């Protein structure tokens, strides 16, 4: 199985498991950076390309750290 793991890693860096929290953090950092350079909100494809990831991996990372905020907090942040 070690053999197989290595194969997966070599073959496709997208599949390497990273701590999702760190990945979600990098997604947000990249979003901010691109926002600055593009002067508009980047798309998920642009963020994915910048991080050499598949858009699906970005979805997974953001979902994994999705805080269980109530809708009230989402609607009225800071209140």
């Amino acid at each position: 199985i070690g053999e197989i793991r290595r194969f997966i890693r070599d073959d496709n860096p997208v599949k390497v498991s990273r701590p999702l929290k760190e990945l979600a953090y990098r997604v947000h950092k990249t979003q901010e950076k691109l926002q600055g350079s593009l002067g508009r909100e980047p798309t998920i494809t642009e963020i994915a390309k910048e991080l050499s990831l598949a858009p699906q991996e970005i979805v997974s990372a953001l979902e994994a750290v999705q805080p269980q905020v109530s809708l009230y907090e989402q609607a009225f942040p800071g209140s």
Partner: protein
Amino acid sequence: MGTQIKNQIKFSMLSVDENVGFARTAAAAFAAQLDLTLTEIDEIKVAVSEAVSNSVIHGYGDCNDKQNYIELIMNLFQDKLEFTVIDYGRGIADIKEARQPSFSSDPERMGLGFVFMDSFMDELEVISELGQGTTVRMVKMLVPCVEH
């Protein structure tokens, strides 16, 4: 050409709390095939999970029969994304009233679900019949690539 389906995924899931989160991820994962911003994807996630949680909470509410199913149909057309959430639960007596901001049949709740769906999506259609169930269809229009 705008009416030709480019991709379709249909789900049927048990009406349990866990699947609200699942539907949210599924909607985001489906939307990720398009060149949307994270904000747009977030809006879709919220709208779809509000509709699914309404089916779990209000549609099947007190029936603790675990065999209640909710359907989620996701369609991609040339110019839009369409999400349809269907339950076969108790239905809505007065749809117009239900869609009012702050209206909830449950005093503990905020009554903002339909408001979110309405403001985050470009189209919202609610069809319901008492005792038969509810269908919520939501559309997000896609901006042509040239604008990016």
